[in-house]
Each structure stands twice: as structure tokens, then as C-alpha cells.
């Protein structure tokens, strides 16, 4: 166990080097966010005052996007998938096969430290932005809800990590994984609720998406925070989210074992 603390320690030190890059990225990311908020404001302006879009007032819609930004900072897989694919392509995996360290656990630690540093760096600009929007920012109904929001966010982080990890493992078979990573990212972006809240979709589509893990990435924790998912639906949702985390974990393990077999057979 101690070796993983060591990994975390090194991970923090290594990632701290990129703190200015993270700050750039966090600040730059506010620009498309502003553009989206402007767009929604124009849409709501076209409706009668206090108009709603699928049950969202302008305040809740704005809060939705602000929360998505927060959850994204805490859970997004930024460089990890590229690095994993590079490790495989460059043959760096070999050293891990010799060491008593599980590569996935190692990568999970690095993912965690990366998100930690990014969040610490992004806290200032994002908080300032939210303060500027405070008249539109909705607070959670109670502390319990906020607690479950945090729990769900942690699971989102795990789910995103395992899914991206599995995608990156395609590097065992394919030369260029970047296209696959981008395709997954595109699906996560739209079906995960990053682009718009999933409940403004026509109900048929929204229900179809329930069979995929995507709504349980960005959309689910945010809907908990906004109080839309409570009581029985909250428990159900959390169970489904746990299911997807477990499923993606198992898939990741399975793909890894297949990939390693091929890797070792190639004399790596």
C-alpha cells in the first residue's frame, strides 16, 4: 500500500510543474462557457418572462452549466489516456510487468493527483466566475443532497477513468488510438450532459440513453445537486451508477489481460 502513497507523492510533484498550463486551460475554458450562457440567455429572452425550457428556468440552466464545469474539473480525463497509449506504444509497460505494482492502480493514482492539482489551480478562476453569476446560481436543497452529489461525483470520476483507460488500451492493437479516444469523447460530451441537460431531449431519446453509461457521467451528479433526482430515483440512480463503475472496471481488467497477452507474445 505504501508504494501507492509514493506514487501519489511523485504524481503531485510531477503535476505541479504543469500548474500554469492548468491555469491557462481553466481560464480559457471559461470562454466557451460564457458563450453558451449568452446563447441560453438569448433563447430565454425570446420566451415570455419566467419562461422555462423543459422545466429549467434561466437560473437553473445557468447553474447546470456552472456545475458541469465544476464536475468536469474534478473528473475529466485530460492527459491520462494519451499517456497510457504512449506507454504502451513506447514499450514502457514492460517495466511495470516486472514490478510488483498494478498498472491500473498506478494510473488511477496519477489520475487522482492530476485532478487534485487541476482543481486546486482552477478553484480561483471558476469561483470568481460563479460569483459573477451568483444571482443565477442555485444552491442545493440541503446538506444531504450535497453529500450525495459528492459521492456521485467520485463515482463519475471512476467511471470516466475506467472508460478512458479501456479506450487507451486499444493501443495494444491499433497504432493510432487518438481517433477512438475522440469518438468516445464526442459521445461522452453529448450523451453525458456536457453539451446540454439530458432532460431537454425528447423523452424517447432520454430513455434510450438510460441504457448507456453516459448519463451517469456528467448529468447524474448535477441532477442530484439540482434536487431533480431525489428519494427513490436517487437510490436507483446510484445503484445504476455503481453498476456501470463495476462493469467498466471489469471491462478494463479484461481488455488489459488480453492486451498484455498480445504484448508479451510480441516479445515486449
Amino acid at each position, binding site marked *: 500500500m505504501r508504494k501507492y502513497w509514493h506514487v501519489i507523492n511523485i504524481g503531485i510533484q510531477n503535476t505541479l510543474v504543469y500548474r500554469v498550463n492548468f491555469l491557462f486551460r481553466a481560464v480559457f475554458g471559461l*470562454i466557451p462557457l460564457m458563450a453558451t450562457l449568452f446563447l441560453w440567455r438569448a433563447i430565454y429572452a425570446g420566451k415570455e418572462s419566467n419562461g422555462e425550457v423543459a422545466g429549467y428556468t434561466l437560473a437553473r440552466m445557468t447553474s447546470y452549466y456552472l456545475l458541469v464545469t465544476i464536475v468536469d474539473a474534478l473528473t475529466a480525463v485530460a492527459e491520462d489516456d494519451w499517456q497510457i497509449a504512449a506507454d504502451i506504444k513506447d514499450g514502457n509497460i514492460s517495466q511495470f510487468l516486472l514490478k510488483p505494482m498494478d498498472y491500473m492502480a498506478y494510473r488511477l493514482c496519477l489520475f487522482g493527483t492530476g485532478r487534485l492539482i487541476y482543481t486546486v489551480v482552477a478553484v480561483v478562476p471558476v469561483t470568481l466566475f460563479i460569483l459573477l453569476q451568483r444571482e443565477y446560481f442555485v444552491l442545493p436543497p440541503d446538506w444531504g443532497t450535497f453529500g450525495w452529489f459528492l459521492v456521485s461525483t467520485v463515482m463519475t470520476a471512476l467511471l470516466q477513468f475506467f472508460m478512458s483507460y479501456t479506450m487507451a488500451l486499444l493501443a495494444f492493437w491499433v497504432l493510432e488510438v487518438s481517433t477512438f479516444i475522440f469518438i468516445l469523447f464526442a459521445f461522452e460530451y453529448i450523451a453525458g450532459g456536457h453539451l446540454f441537460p439530458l432532460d431537454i431531449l425528447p423523452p424517447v431519446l432520454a430513455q434510450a440513453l438510460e441504457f448507456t453509461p453516459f448519463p451517469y457521467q456528467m448529468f447524474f451528479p448535477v441532477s442530484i445537486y439540482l434536487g431533480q433526482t431525489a428519494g427513490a430515483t436517487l437510490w436507483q440512480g446510484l445503484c445504476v451508477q455503481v453498476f456501470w463503475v463495476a462493469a467498466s472496471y471489469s471491462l478494463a481488467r479484461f481488455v488489459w489481460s488480453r492486451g498484455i497477452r498480445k504484448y508479451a507474445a510480441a516479445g515486449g
Partner: protein
Amino acid sequence: MLRVKLKRYLTIYAALWKNSIVREMSFKANFLLWIVVELLWFALQLSFFAVIYSHTDRIGTWSKWQVVMLLGASHFIQQIFTAVFLTNCTQLSELIRTGRLDFMLLLPVNTRFMISFRQVDLGGFVNAASAVAVMIYAGKQLHLSPGWEQILGFGSLAAVGIVIHYALMFLLASVSFWTVRAQGIVWGYYNLFNIARLPDEAFRGLFKAFFTFALPMLLIANVPVKLLVQKLGSPFEMFLLLGMAAGCLVVSEAVWRMSVRHYTSASS
């Protein structure tokens, strides 16, 4: 004299094209996959507005198919830019770092021309075709029947928009002469391209002013589309677009020359 020079540069450009084709065809699967990725992202944006327009019928004065036209046009501009210029702009920092720029500075051809046109990304043209298809469909839905002057006007204004992107991105890439962080800045600018896809009426205040008079994202696709769908009240915006293009080119060239002068005097 000018004719001879032009012919010479066209011959060189033809050779650069052939080079690019040969290289791309050796990675056929990858080439196709990237087109799929771009089509997916384009579809994503169209879906976003499809969902929005199921809840409203106007954004400002923009109707659904006008916005689709705008999305098609900005995608078209972005893809042509990507095909002809993007890789070359982002590679400038590599050329400096590896020292290959020194070799290019020695060639008896205008260096900026060589750098800017070195590689062609053919996938961009395929994606541009998909954008044109969407624009034609939107045009039909709007019952537009543009005359040759309008189509020519659109094409010219779109070309001006591409020139602005080129001037600005090359300017930002020239920053590589001075600092290592240029790559991040260049990609940061590329992320701003997405603002060009949004109708300008949604924006106000400082945001609108900045993206009209400093980084004219809100002019690049909006103006040509407004010409096509007959939203332009006066030629003012066209002149503004042309003016901004001229300004950006002048600044871009000035910074380039200054940077090269500084670079060559330092290393000799």
C-alpha cells in the same frame, strides 16, 4: 515578372500537395477515421441546435435553418482552414525547436510561404464538402435561391474569414520564437473557433466587442451567412470584415518579420 513568380509558387505548391497526398494515403484507415471523428463532432453541434429549436423557434432573429446554415458555413470555413493552414501553423514551434527552420530560411523561396503551405490535410476538404451539403439542405429549407453574385460574395467573404484565421493563428504561432508556451496558445485560439459557430445576436457587451473588433470570431461566419440569407441591412459589416482581415494580416506579417529578424540575429 509577377506572372513568372506566381507560376513558380504555384508549381511549388503543387509539389507540396502531391507530397501530402502520398503521405495521407499510406495511412488510409487513419485518414478515414479522422473524417468520421469530424463528421461526428459536426453532427453533435447540429444536434445541439436541433434540441434547442425543439423548445423555441428563434434565437434573436435567427430561425432554425438560418442557424443550421451558420453552422454549415463556419464548419466549412474551419475545415478549409484546417486543410490548408492548421498543421502548418501548429508545426512552427516544432520547426524552431528542431532547427529545421534554419534550413527553410536558407531556401530561395519566401519562408512564410513554405511554412504556411507545406502540408495539406486532405480530410479537411472532405469535411468541407459535408458542410456544403448541410448548407445546401438548409438553403432549400429556407427557400433560398441565391444568385451568382450572392454565392460569389459568400465565397469571397468566407475566404476573407479563412485569411483572418490564418493571420491570427500564424501570429500566435510566431510567439514560438519567444517562448515555449506557444503550442498551448495556438490550441487555445483553435478552441475559440467554436464561437464562430454561434449567431452574433446572442452576444452583448464586452464579450461581443472583443470577438468583433479584437478576435473577430463573430464576424467570420456570421457575415457571409447573413449575406446569403439576406440579413445584412447595410454593407457596413462586410467592410468591417475586410478591414479586420487587412488589419490582422498587417499585424501578423509585422510580428513574423520582427520575430525572424530577432531569431536570425541571435543565432548567427
